[in-house]
């Protein structure tokens, strides 16, 4: 048959699919910029302990609030610590905690949303009202409560952030499931007698995966901002661990005469958030989901 050549699209391995998606993402200028920024930050997080020029916790009263120089590229802060060293190290904690936090958010939010979308009825009603109730609580207040009760350790922060940012994903996953659930292939699977688990795993997840992944990527950047806000308020990372939120909070009072101490962490934080946002958008477009036409719930 002549037509065969046209249809030669064999089943691809997951790796081949991923690399194809990344190539499509990078083919757009915005995607390329986003990906490079994100990649830069990830690489920096890995290598920063080995390339940092100074000790991040070395306090030296004689070097207080030095302007940028050849020795201290970004100057020093109010305790005489090197701002450059602290800036390149400052993203590590935030990046790690929020990465695992969003994974947890994706997992529970996605699965619960799909489950509610599939079973519907009473269970759906009850679960969604609980989710709505939690959505109405200002997350920062709730986070402050949790942190002040349980402390600011990583084991507390990751699940707590994961929980609060997963609520939104529940709604997105449920809506995406509703789009699929009315299709005949689901009806067909139900009529064959497949279990709910099998329907979710085989029939629904492959069709809602993309939408949920994109949503998760967006939540990642929001969570980063949220985590930095916590640090800013003093509830995130405890000193002397370098962290952007904390650094901004410490240096903001001295902004009028030592601007360098506050600008460096701000650039670090905002560039990472912009990078993740651009990447998520490019990811959505590469998968054929246009976020501009679909507002997140």
């Amino acid at each position, binding site marked *: 048959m002549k037509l065969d050549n046209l249809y030669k699209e064999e089943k691809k391995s997951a790796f081949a699919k991923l690399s194809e998606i990344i190539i499509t993402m990078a083919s757009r200028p915005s995607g390329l910029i986003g990906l490079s920024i994100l990649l830069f930050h990830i690489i920096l997080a890995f290598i920063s302990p080995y390339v940092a020029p100074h000790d991040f916790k070395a306090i030296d009263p004689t070097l207080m609030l030095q302007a940028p120089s050849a020795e201290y590229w970004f100057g020093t802060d109010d305790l005489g610590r090197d701002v450059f060293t602290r800036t390149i190290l400052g993203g590590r904690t935030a990046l790690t905690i929020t990465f695992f936090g969003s994974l947890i958010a994706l997992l529970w939010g996605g699965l619960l949303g799909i489950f509610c979308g599939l079973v519907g009825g009473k269970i759906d009603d009850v679960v969604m009202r609980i989710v709505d109730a939690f959505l109405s609580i200002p997350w920062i207040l709730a986070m402050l409560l949790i942190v002040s009760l349980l402390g600011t350790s990583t084991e507390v922060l990751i699940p707590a952030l994961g929980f609060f940012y997963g609520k939104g994903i529940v709604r997105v996953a449920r809506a995406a499931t509703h789009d699929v659930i009315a*299709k005949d292939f689901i009806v067909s699977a139900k009529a064959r007698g497949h279990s709910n688990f099998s329907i979710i795993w085989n029939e629904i997840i492959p*069709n809602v995966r993309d939408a949920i992944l994109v949503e998760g990527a967006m939540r990642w950047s929001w969570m980063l901002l949220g985590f930095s806000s916590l640090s800013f308020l003093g509830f995130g990372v405890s000193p002397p661990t370098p962290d952007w939120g904390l650094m901004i909070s410490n240096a903001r009072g001295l902004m009028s005469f030592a601007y360098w101490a506050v600008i460096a962490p701000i650039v670090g934080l905002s560039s990472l958030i912009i990078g993740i946002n651009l990447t998520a958008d490019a990811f959505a477009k590469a998968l054929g989901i246009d976020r501009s036409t679909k507002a997140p719930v």
Partner: protein
Amino acid sequence: MTDIIQKVKNLSIGFRSKKGEEILILKNISTNIKKGETVGIVGESGSGKSTLALAMMGYVKHGLYTIGGECQFNSSNLLKMKSKDLEKIRGRKIAMIPQNAGQALTPNLKIGYQIDEALQLHSDLNEKEREKKISELLNKVRLPSPETIALRYPHELSGGQQQRVAVAMALAGTPDLLLLDEPTTGLDVTTQAHVLELLNFIAKDTGTSMVYVSHDLGAIAQVSDRIIVMYSGEIVLEGPSRDILKRPIHPYTHGLLKSIPKLSLAGLPESMPGSQPQPGTIQSGCSFFDRCNFSDENCKNNSPQLEFLKDINTSVRCFNYEKLVKENQVSQTVNKIKNKSQDKEILNLSEVSISYAKQKLLDQIFNRISDDNPTVKDININIKKGETIALVGESGSGKSTILKSIAGLLRTKDGLIRFDENRNLSSDLKERDPNDLRIIQLIFQNPDESLNPNHTVEEIIAQPLKLYFGLKGEELKKNIIDLLQKVRLGEFYTSRYPRQLSGGEKQRVAVARAFAAKPDIILCDEVTSALDVSVQAAVLNLLQQLKEDFGTTYIFVSHDLAVVRAISDRVAVLYQGRLCEVGPSNDVYKFPSHPYTEVLLGAVLEPDPDIKPKLVAEDIVEERPPEKGCSFQGRCSRMVGDICKKEIPPWQLTDSGNAIRCHIPIKELQKEQF
């Protein structure tokens, strides 16, 4: 010449693929539309017929662009016009009637307001005159009591009425040319016949030229003076309607007419092999080459040109049309189906009723359904092993509802569904054991929706094999390939995704999945209505073949009486969820019959200009079945009196074993109405 209203000259429209190749949707189309003439454009999905109709309005869909040629209207090229000038022509000179009027009308504005809007745009009438014009227009499209209709919202009208409103809106600008894009496709058979009759009337009354785009040769035959047949972006045949339908001289049209099931012929029509090529795949030679029965080496290498034959006033794109000129009539041969049904009963529905009513709190607690007037009521059908029984009716007749409850997807309110004489099938899906689920399989209307787009063909067919038989590895693979061969698909299809298959291939995969469970009964829900005509016959033939091989029983739901005629042994006619007539299909299609069957049969459109549909009852749609009496009382033209409104009619048996539920005595029914 002045009587040409729209002149399409060497029009090519296409898009650029990802690789940068130019892919043509329309290839060098030239045709003229004359004043007062109705031209039917017919073709399968993807043949470019809608693109051509839209181009006649100066509109090219997003993503496509004009490669060459022009569309001249009043000697100005619409495709090069500025949008400001186009606005003056669209609606006022050229109007369009869309396929789905329900979606084309704004849901939150009253009908009268929407027509008024069109009038304000396209006429210079003042308020008083517009008011008069609105009722005039609504009168013209034969809507009852225009004054009240004008005050209604679109959702308060039936599909047929909505379509009439769309016609009225199109007529508001008194256009010279009306473009109709599949205007009756979504409608019920009876409504369809009424709307077509209206269009015919309007064409005569106003002298408007019409371009009627459809895939349905039956509808085209009723309205058009001239027919253009399109295939793969080209005009393959163009000529007077009667000649084309009676003596098609292009192999595609010839084959197409042969593959349409007809009411007058029981049995399956011949099928056409293959499917229409995807745009951009044909490089050289005739685009119909690999499906053609008349092709030779010449067709493979050279593309035929459109040739005008003066003596029959027809243009044809074929090297070998002469072979067909000699054949003066389409002789349709059908494969008579052998009735192999045994006497053994396989499925028995007794006193089944189904309700969609919302359960009240008390009913929820006691887990019961209380509804005095359920959607489906009193269904008693015995289905014998190996037979094909068809459930026929218009939308809302409850035919799909019955299928769903046989499959267990919908709870029954009352009644029993028994399998194999003594096994009761629970009405709840969760309570059925896996074997009960295996014996009944479903095939759906639209294969795009019934196949998971993210699964390969292999994964799709593997689902029931893994679930019911626990197959794994080599054995699973072998079974899948076996099944694919049974539905005439090659082994290489296993790694493909549904989006890489044509409509017919997708439906074959769906058939293979149903047969994978080795079921005793297969429920077919409108399985051919989403398919192109040329593919439909092939799928029907396949289903018949599989049935003969496996001895499966089919329950076949369809609104298309000709398709039902072709495949079924027995027919059950439903109206508003109540049975009207049950009997062997030969007898149901003959008199005497239930008044509703009569209406349905009369409205069937055949691709023959000599067979006109008979319009019996009004095309009103009832929301709910009547509380008491005969279900058809609202539309029946043969009511015998109050008894029809008060008492449920009795079953009457004809000599041939056909059961009719009507108060009118059999002898009386025997008399034809027209």
